[in-house]
């Protein structure tokens, strides 16, 4: 019983800590992720693959034009377009349960970087 209560307490605490971090989701990325270089850079094929993945995984919430739908924010904002690729990669990996952004950790790293490559082209 104590173990169950401790696990529940730990879960509530971790949610609370995660939710009290300041700033937008992109701004919450830890420095070690922000510094990560995008292995695809500005690769055209990777951006096209990222566009395909974006339409499949992200467009239902953020819109095909990335202008956002309902509570899902637009992605053609400076917070995203000027973000470090590593920060976007971190957001895709972790999501934000409290904000309704799912984790895309189930996608292979390469596919997450392809989505980042596409996002960095949005204007």
């Amino acid at each position, binding site marked *: 019983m104590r173990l169950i209560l401790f*696990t529940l307490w*730990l*879960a509530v605490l*971790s*949610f609370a800590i*995660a*939710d009290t971090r300041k700033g937008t989701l992109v701004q919450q990325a830890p420095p070690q992720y922000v510094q990560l270089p995008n292995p695809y850079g500005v690769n055209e*094929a*990777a951006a*096209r*693959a*990222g566009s*395909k*993945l974006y339409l*499949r*995984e992200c*467009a*239902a*919430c953020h819109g095909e034009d990335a202008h956002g739908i*309902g509570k899902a924010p637009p992605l053609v904002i400076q917070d995203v377009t000027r973000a470090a690729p590593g920060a976007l990669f971190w957001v895709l*990996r*972790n*999501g*934000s*349960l*409290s*904000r*309704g*952004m*799912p*984790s895309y*950790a*189930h*996608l*292979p*790293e*390469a*596919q997450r970087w*392809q989505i980042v490559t596409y996002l960095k082209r949005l204007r």
Partner: protein
Amino acid sequence: MFLGPFVRCSSAAEGPFFITYTHQMEEPGNLEISFKGVTAGQDGGERFLGVADEFEYGIKGWWTTEVYLDGQTTTGENALFTGFRWENRFRILPREHWINPVAYVEFEDLNGADKSLLEVVGHDAKADLGEPNGLTRREKQREIETKLILSSYFKGWTLAENLIAEKNVSHAPYEFGYAVGISRPLALEARPEPCSLCRENFQAGLEVYGGLGTQPHFGLFQTSHYVAPTLAWALANGTLFRISPGFGVTATSARFLLRFSVTYEIQQFGRAARRIFRDGQ
């Protein structure tokens, strides 16, 4: 479908597993509809087809709920509805870690004729599958099942471990089981052009699952265990096909099980449904 104008489908992104759960939750508002079947030729019994229709909905990012409707048909006997299951999964940690726990609670109201075999626990054995439906359908099985789901993603690989504890709500001992799975997409990079048969759309894996006895008789003695390679194929239109031949490795296991499923995921079903009821669109 009447929601067609409002929703888009996504490739159902869950892995190739039938028994093993990962920590991947259904996206909030998404509805996943799945038909799962399992068939086997019984040693000394009749061939059967157990089916489970699954409706999975993402309520919150940390909470996924599912309803299963189970049925079965056995050669020479009637097809019958065998009951329902209601399961809930709760993600415990908000961020990704090297290992990610999920708590699972399920209520089952089934009869003894159920052959969907969505888990193997306790001393489940092939002999249970060979009994006539007329006899087993009278047996009520109201059970609470809990699982601790642990899983990790590492360099394209998915590794998941499930520990299962099941308890009949009437007087019966706890039954235990396990499931372990490993899988990987055949290609880690996506191709730039849309495609159906490219390697990125296929995932291959292996599941091992079985019973661990009961509370008074915990262990491997007289338990069933299966080794099952799995393959999943995701189409661009959001349909996922899965197939898995399973091989029993102990004397009490069924010799061979063939599992298959078709899954379709409707993105943002909740939003579309709300809009229909609110605006009459």
